[in-house]
C-alpha cells in the first residue's frame, strides 16, 4: 500500500506541476505569440534557446542549474543579493527548474496554434475596431483553445515525469523536493519493490488516463513530438 510518505510525494509532485504549468502558460503565451508573429532576426535564436531542454539530457540541465544557482554561480549571486537565498534544495528552485525544463512543451503547441490562426481573423477583428488586447482575448484565445489544452497537459505531465533535474538539484527533502519519481527510484534502490510497484502503478494509471482523455473524450490530434 501507499505509505503516508508516498502520498506526500504525490501531493508535492502535483503542487510543483500545477504551479509550474501556471507559470509556463503565463510566460509562454506572450513568448509563443511573439515567436508566431515576428519576423525579427532574433526568432531563430530564441526558438533554439527555448527548445534546448528537448534535446539536452536532464542531467546536463540539472548540473548547470546546480552550479549556476549555487552560492558561487551567477543566478545564485543574484538571488542571494535579492535576499532570497540560493535555489537548490528548495521548493522554489524545483519550480524554476521545472519551468525551464518543460517550457518547450508549452511554447511549441501554442506557437503552432497561433501560427495556424493566420491573418484573416485578426484583420476582421481590426476592421470591427477591436483593440489588439481585445482581439487577443476574444478571437485568438478561443481559436487557439486546442493549443492551450495540449500545452497545459503536456507541460503538466512532463513536469510530473521530471527526474534527472530533480535528482541533481533536489536533495531529497520530504515535502520540499522529494517528488514521486525520486521516491520510486529510492524504493527500487532500497529493494522495496512492493512500495515501488504501488507508486509506479499510480503514475502509470494517471498518465494513461490523461492521455486517454486527451485522445478520446477531447478528440485532440495525437500529440507527437512537439518539434514535428
Amino acid at each position: 500500500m501507499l505509505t503516508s510518505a508516498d502520498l506526500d510525494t504525490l501531493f508535492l509532485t502535483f503542487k510543483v506541476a500545477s504551479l509550474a504549468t501556471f507559470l509556463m502558460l503565463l510566460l509562454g503565451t506572450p513568448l509563443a505569440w511573439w515567436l508566431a508573429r515576428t519576423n525579427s532576426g532574433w526568432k531563430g535564436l530564441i526558438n533554439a534557446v527555448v527548445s534546448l531542454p528537448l534535446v539536452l539530457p536532464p542531467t546536463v540541465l540539472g548540473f548547470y542549474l546546480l552550479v549556476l544557482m549555487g552560492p558561487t554561480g551567477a543566478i545564485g549571486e543574484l538571488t542571494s543579493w535579492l535576499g532570497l537565498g540560493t535555489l537548490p534544495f528548495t521548493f522554489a528552485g524545483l519550480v524554476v527548474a521545472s519551468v525551464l525544463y518543460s517550457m518547450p512543451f508549452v511554447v511549441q503547441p501554442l506557437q503552432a496554434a497561433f501560427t495556424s490562426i493566420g491573418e484573416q481573423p485578426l484583420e476582421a477583428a481590426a476592421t470591427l475596431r477591436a483593440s489588439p488586447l481585445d482581439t487577443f482575448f476574444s478571437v485568438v484565445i478561443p481559436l487557439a483553445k486546442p493549443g492551450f489544452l495540449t500545452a497545459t497537459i503536456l507541460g503538466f505531465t512532463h513536469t510530473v515525469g521530471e527526474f534527472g533535474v530533480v535528482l541533481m538539484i533536489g536533495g531529497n527533502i520530504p515535502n520540499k523536493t522529494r517528488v514521486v519519481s525520486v521516491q520510486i527510484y529510492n524504493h527500487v534502490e532500497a529493494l522495496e519493490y512492493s512500495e515501488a510497484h504501488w507508486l509506479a502503478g499510480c503514475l502509470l494509471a494517471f498518465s494513461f488516463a490523461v492521455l486517454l482523455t486527451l485522445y478520446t473524450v477531447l478528440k485532440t490530434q495525437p500529440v507527437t513530438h512537439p518539434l514535428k
Partner: protein
Amino acid sequence: MSLNACSRAVILSMLLLFSQTTWAATVLVAVAANFSKPMTEIAAEFEKATGHSAHLSFGSSGKFVSQLGNGGPFEILLSADEKGPQKLEQDGFTVPNSRFVYAQGRLVLWSAKPGYIDDQGKILTTGNFKHLALADPKLAPYGAAAVEVLKKQGLFEKLQPLFVQGENIAQTYQFINTANAELGFVALSQVIENGKITNGSGWIIPDNDHTPIRQGAVLMKKGAENPAAPALLNYLKSAPALAIIKKYGYDLPQ
C-alpha cells in the same frame, strides 16, 4: 591464395582471437561510488600485472544489487556494505564462499571552504549553516553512519531539518563541492590525497563513533567462468592493492 589457404587463414586467426581472450579477458565490475578513485588505480595496476582488463561502473550499491538481482551483467560487485553481497548470496546469484571484506570505510565531515571545519567537528553545534549534506541513509552505508554519528552527539533532531540527501556518496560530494551545502558527510577517499585532506577542510570521524563500514566484495555466478574475475578478486587482496586502499584513507580489512 586458394580457397583452402584462405579458410585456413581464417581459422588460424579465429584461434588466435580466442586464445587471446582466454589469456587476456575483460571483467565487468560494479563499484560503489566511494571506492571509485582507489579502484581506478587498482584496475590500472591489475591490467599491468595480469594483462586482463577490468571495466568499471560506478554507482550506488543499492542500485547495483537491484540490477544484479534482475540479470545485470556485472561479474563482480564491490559494495559499500556487507548487506548487498549477503542478499545476492542468499538469493543464489553468487559463487559460494566468494564473499569477503575488501576495505573498511572512513567517514569525514567535509566542507569546500578551507578552515571552516575544526578537527573536533564542533562546527556541528556552533555553526550557522543552512544545509548539511549526507548520502540517503536508507540507501548508502556512509549516510547511515553519518546519522549514527549525529545521534551519538545528540544533534540528530536539531540538524535533521537541514539535511540534503544525495542518492549516493558521489552526489553528496557534488552538493558540497559546488558550495550549495556548506558542509556534509562524505567518504574520506573522496577528499584525501597522499594521506591528507588537500581541498577545503574536514574532520575525520573517529571510527568508534559509528558501526564500522565494512565493504564487501563478491563474485557473481556470471563471472565464474571468466579467468579475469577471480584474478581481480585475488589482486584486491594483494600488497599493491592494499597499499592503494590504505592510501585513500581506508582501514584494511581485519
